[in-house]
């Protein structure tokens, strides 16, 4: 579903990533790790079509990203759930409305969807915060709201960029459990993180593969973490 073939990406200065070939297997659980500035976020952005590779080809759900029009990219985003590093909410809408935003922009605000939404809010433990505004949320609540928004369209893939970046250990465990549950429902999960203890904690719950960015390339790390 997500395939990178000999992909390179460079910002003005120089190459950040090069010769990356990667194929995410459906239903698997991945961690993407590497030092800060190694290009984790960039690689994720390549995976959801926010960036075009400088060279090579990114294929998402069978479509070459470089050939997609803007509407094609929009359609693609509805099939992928993305948890962004900074969550990116609309601050003038309530938490519920923010979580339902993907439904609204794709015109799928049906009654059934409304029930799903209630269930989803309960699943991430935000029912009591439904009418709160995003700026009123704590770090952990924001991350859970972002996760709920990412999965409301029931995507095949969930991409999360440092979902545990700003939360304490207990909350990061809770988020991890939610992501593992999603994976058990058959969704492919890719989490970018520099938190190795999170990866270790995950290994006891799910068979996770670890991709490490080093020297501008992605390597499949062994079980030696």
């Amino acid at each position: 579903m997500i395939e990178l073939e000999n992909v390179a990406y460079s910002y003005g200065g120089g190459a950040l990533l090069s010769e990356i070939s990667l194929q995410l297997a459906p239903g698997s659980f991945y961690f993407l790790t590497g030092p800060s500035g190694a290009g984790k976020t960039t690689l994720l952005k390549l995976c959801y079509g926010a960036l075009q590779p400088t060279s090579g080809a990114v294929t998402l759900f069978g479509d070459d990203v470089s050939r997609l029009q803007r509407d094609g990219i929009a359609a693609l985003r509805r099939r992928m759930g993305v948890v962004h590093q900074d969550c990116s909410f609309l601050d003038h809408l309530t938490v519920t409305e923010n979580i339902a935003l993907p439904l609204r922009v794709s015109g799928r605000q049906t009654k059934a969807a409304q029930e799903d939404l209630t269930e989803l809010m309960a699943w991430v433990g935000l029912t009591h915060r439904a009418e709160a505004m995003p700026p009123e949320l704590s770090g952990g609540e924001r991350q859970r709201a972002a996760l709920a928004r990412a999965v409301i369209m029931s995507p095949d893939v969930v991409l999360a960029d440092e979902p545990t970046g700003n939360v304490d250990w207990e909350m990061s465990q809770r988020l991890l459990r939610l992501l593992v549950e999603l994976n058990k429902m058959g969704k492919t999960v890719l989490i970018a993180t520099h938190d190795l203890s999170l990866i270790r904690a995950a290994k006891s719950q799910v068979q996770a593969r670890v991709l490490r960015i080093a020297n501008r390339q992605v390597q499949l790390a062994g079980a030696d973490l």
Partner: protein
Amino acid sequence: MRLVDVKRLVFGDRQADKVVPPSGFTAQLTVFAAGAMAFLAVFALALSLASGRLAARWGDELAQSSTIRIVAPMDQRAAQTEAALGILETTAGVAFARALGEDEQQALLAPWFGTELDLRALPVPQLIEIIEEDSGFDAAGLRLRLAAEVPGAILDDHSQWRAPLVDAANRLRLLGWISAGLLGASVAAMVTLAAHAALAANAQVIAVLRLVGATDRYIAQAFIRRFTLRAFGGAMVGAVVAMAMVALLPDASERAGFLTGLSFQGWHWFLPFLIPLLSAVVAFLATSAAANRTLKRLA
């Protein structure tokens, strides 16, 4: 712009607006500016229509009639009048010609001399009224013939003083239309600026919407809808206020009948209602262009 799009814009997902935060003060500025433009546009329209009427009326009335003055000693006057009428009968393009009677001339001069004066005591020229056919006649040719046969006749086809007046009225009308056009362009410029400002201020919102899978069309619509409705609403208020003021203008009196009232006449009263509609169309196009330009630059 397809009909479906317009329908969706008017009746579509009203909630879609909500994804863009309300903008308060700047929104009111847009409404105010659209209203002010519409207000001015109604006057430009009234001016254009009035000067159009004026040009048409002066043109029509004066073009169809001419006058011959017979200035001759009293004893020759009747003979010269007869001769002139004879020439006119054989002139192509003259539909009808007749000498004005004494009482008619008296009535014409009454404003200056009063009704008591006996005109026979004065060497007042005899007037002959000529009604032209639509094709008109050859004034220069007629003058030559009159000069040869009726020395006391002077042909006045009114064109000397009519032409500049009609020209002026036509120029005034053109000025009115240019003003209306400029006002329309100003609405477009104002809305474009406001839309750019709104799009720039909401770059973050747009980025979030893109990330959750909103199409450009969806995002643009939230902006387009707002600005179109604001321009329409503002222009409607401005136009109605201006129309009320036009309606309250004093009517041009009978005495000043060669001028014309600035007020709208008959079905022309419906024309100002086109201004809000046009404003809405202009705002729609301007916002669409601005939104599409801006969105293409964003990831």
